[in-house]
């Protein structure tokens, strides 16, 4: 299993500023993902952040807007840059723990971001 801690749990930010979200995992994991979830909506993958390689962004998400760091196997950050009210959402960190017969994906509790 994996326990994921995200900081901050919530924040209210002003338009034009940036927020860095931290994700700490209690075990070493290779595969890490960042998702966005609008309230009451499904999860949208922002990027895959595997240690040792550049983050891979999904369509509609760019590195300039959502820079990601992955300095080691237990930690990652996602920055939401030059924020606008449209960035108000829940941001979730997720990791995959590989097992003998299956992989299991775990999620953090999320960071609830409101942009004024």
């Amino acid at each position, binding site marked *: 299993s994996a326990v994921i801690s995200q900081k901050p749990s919530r924040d209210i930010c002003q338009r034009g500023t940036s927020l860095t979200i931290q994700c700490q995992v209690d075990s070493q994991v290779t595969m890490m993902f960042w998702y966005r979830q609008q309230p009451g909506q499904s999860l949208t993958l922002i990027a895959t952040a595997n240690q040792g390689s550049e983050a891979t962004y999904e369509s509609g998400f760019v590195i300039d807007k959502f820079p990601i760091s992955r300095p080691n196997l237990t930690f990652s950050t996602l920055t939401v840059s030059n924020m606008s009210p449209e960035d108000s959402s829940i941001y*979730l960190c997720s990791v995959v723990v590989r097992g003998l017969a299956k992989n299991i994906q*775990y999620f953090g509790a999320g960071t609830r971001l409101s942009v004024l």
Partner: protein
Amino acid sequence: QQQVKQSPQSLIVQKGGISIINCAYENTAFDYFPWYQQFPGKGPALLIAIRPDVSEKKEGRFTISFNKSAKQFSLHIMDSQPGDSATYFCAASVLSSGAGSYQLTFGKGTKLSVIP
């Protein structure tokens, strides 16, 4: 991303009743179908998952039924309890031995309310 279509969007069930949530997928390469449960203020948590080599998997009160030819799978919650009230997401992926290729495609979610 290939879609995973989930229905219904919301569901109200009496305590002790059966909750049924359905999902359909398009990508025949999908070979892993998990269900996630999300309580308010929490990240999604893996509930139960199935591979396409079996038609049914049961864990306690939770059962996945899988129909490969119809490209459909469903979650059944027997003897539904108020504590089961949450949002349920189906998902699908192509399991891979490669470190960077594990990616879940989520349905839009079903908000389940179990009333006493």
